[in-house]
């Protein structure tokens, strides 16, 4: 575990470069030696998985962009040319299309893991914020990308979402016109959306780098939530332990991903998006992709447009305040009997919101959506502060090794 033991083998060229640009020292330090808690479970796989999916999305996206035409008259057909005439174009597109869903699936699991194990608590507040910034950028990128095939849902989704900005008092309408580059979603809109859809993933890469710098400053949290740097026995080098574990996790992930790409590529999509955009004909239902549904439900559960938009954005921004809304010193829900229950109720609430987002907003789904929206905010603004104040956490182990050794003796 010492530096010498793990150091890369001597190599003249490597040493020459490293003396001038210590890239190999850096990699050795951050990817090999990097002391990691020994007790990370499989929920900790999803961070690296998200990074890999980001790379898959960027690579497949670059090649798609080489064959895509961002023009209202050609966009839909150019996507079909990719599907039919470009060599393995269908594979690129289905990788990219399903990749968006799997990116969100992985990131949702990553975020909920953070919520369960209190990964947003000191000293990881900025790490958490950076993660939320990535999440916001992902939602923007996904929305912009969904517009590009210029199908019915692309067009009408773009119309509905950009129209949200018209809720802003006084400047709302001019802002929407400015966003569109005209008086409706049209060619200028499609062009700028393509440009931004290509730009934002690289911004995400930048924030991911910051996310990793913040992560490596204090190291990973762990299922027990006790600091792994207090006891030297608690840390293991990242390589080979977590490289092996992450690769296995990656394998399982790719199996599931490939199942959808090859055997049910349109499972996550809306079939109406295979109808070319028609500004004169509104589809029966305008629904966003599944990963945005909970926020869509929050938006629609509030009768006032402006307040709905505020609530929708508020639902995300509230997460930035988590380190202060939850003042409990104990990180892991494992030792927090009440918070643990609340976590599962909140997860259920979130899934219910997602369901409501897919329904027509009337009758039971609307009422359920309103209750679920209220609970979303109550969870963060009322229950979390109260529970963190009054809950009696179970006794924490002194270090990660302590409970492990105890159970072994028992």
């Amino acid at each position, binding site marked *: 575990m010492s530096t010498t033991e793990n150091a890369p083998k001597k190599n003249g060229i490597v040493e020459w470069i490293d003396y001038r640009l210590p890239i190999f020292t850096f990699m050795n330090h951050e990817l090999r030696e990097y002391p990691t808690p*020994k007790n990370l*479970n*499989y*929920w900790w796989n999803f961070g690296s998985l998200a990074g890999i999916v980001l790379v898959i999305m960027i690579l497949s996206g670059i090649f798609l962009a080489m064959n895509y035409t961002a023009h209202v008259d050609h966009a839909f*057909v150019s996507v*079909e040319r990719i*599907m*039919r005439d470009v060599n393995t174009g*269908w*594979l690129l597109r*289905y990788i990219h299309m399903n990749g968006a869903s799997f990116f969100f*699936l992985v990131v*949702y*699991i990553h975020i*909920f893991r953070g919520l369960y194990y209190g990964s947003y608590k000191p000293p990881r507040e900025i790490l958490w914020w950076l993660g939320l910034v990535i999440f916001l950028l992902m939602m923007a990128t996904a929305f912009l990308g969904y517009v590009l095939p210029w199908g019915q849902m692309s067009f009408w989704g773009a119309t509905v979402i950009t129209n949200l900005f018209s809720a802003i008092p006084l400047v709302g309408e001019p802002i929407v016109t400015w966003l569109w580059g005209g008086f409706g979603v049209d060619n200028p809109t499609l062009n700028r959306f393509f440009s931004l859809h290509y730009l934002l993933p690289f911004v995400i890469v930048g924030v991911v780098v910051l996310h990793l710098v913040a992560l490596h400053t204090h190291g990973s949290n762990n299922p027990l939530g006790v600091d792994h740097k207090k006891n030297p026995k608690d840390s*293991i080098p990242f390589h*080979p*332990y977590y490289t*092996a*574990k992450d*690769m*296995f996790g*990656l*394998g*399982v992930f*790719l*199996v599931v991903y*490939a*199942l959808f*790409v*090859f*055997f*049910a*590529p*349109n*499972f*996550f*999509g809306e*079939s*109406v998006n*295979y*109808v070319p955009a028609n500004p004169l004909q509104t589809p029966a*239902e305008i*629904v966003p992709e*599944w990963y945005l*549904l909970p926020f869509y439900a929050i938006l629609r559960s509030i009768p006032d447009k402006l307040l709905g938009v505020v609530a929708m954005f508020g639902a995300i921004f509230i997460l930035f305040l988590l380190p202060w809304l939850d003042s409990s010193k104990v990180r892991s829900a494992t030792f927090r009997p009440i918070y643990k229950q609340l976590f599962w109720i909140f*997860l259920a609430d979130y*899934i219910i919101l*997602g*369901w409501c987002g*897919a*329904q027509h907003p009337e009758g039971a789904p609307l009422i359920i959506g309103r209750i679920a929206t209220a609970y979303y905010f109550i969870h963060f603004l009322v229950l979390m502060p109260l529970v963190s104040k009054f809950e009696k956490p179970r006794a924490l182990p002194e270090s990660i090794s302590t409970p*492990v050794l105890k159970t*072994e003796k028992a």
Partner: protein
Amino acid sequence: MSINLRRALLPALGLLAVFAVSSANAAEGEVKLQRQSWAFDGPFGTYDRAALQRGFQIYKEVCSACHAVSLVAYRNLSALGFSEAEVKAIAAAYEVQDKEPNDQGEYFTRPARPADHFKSPFANEQAARAANNGAYPPDLSLITKARLGGGGAVFRFGPSGSDYVYALLTGYKPAPAGVTVPEGMNYNEAFHGHMIAMAQPLNDGAVTFADNTQATVPQMAKDVTTFLTWAAEPEMEARKRLGLKVMLFLLLMTGVFYAWKRKVWKDLH
């Protein structure tokens, strides 16, 4: 660890369940569709070549009077089992306008070549509407995908776009008592709202098949739906074939990684 894994899968399944429910709801509407058994269903499913050729014949002789399949080129017909010469002959039967003008700057028509896309029956949407009582016969290139997510998928909870097209083509029934069908409309039990501008397109014996298959309405509906499913997803067979290889490789790779992980972690306490 197995417990951890099982627990890891739960939320994923939960999210998927949300989907299943939402897509099932979208499919529900007011129409109940029956699932048909298709040769192209399932992980090993392929298109029945004979059905594809019959389906193409039906499209050519019946549907193409009003409906385009503009995303398909004549050259693509080789996938149906036609030889190069046959494809050339099929294309040459159509007179199309060349995209470029001639040396005098005049646009001219010529017999279609295999590289040309299928000739559309109307020059534009307005012409199509004018000829069809104001109704627009949609381009059928993607029709099975544009309804209920296409045909031949593996995880499916309800009927597919192919089932829908079949149900529509066989769904012409006399209107139930009390339902008045407006002038120029027809009653179809599979169509949303039941009132469809298209008159029943398939009637027994509408085409004569070279292979002596009886041209009944269900037979023709099945064949032309197979053709349209292929038109929407011509890559399906290649996709599933490659998919099986990729799955095999990924499973092996995952097994190797699992063994490596076990070995690395074995002596860690």
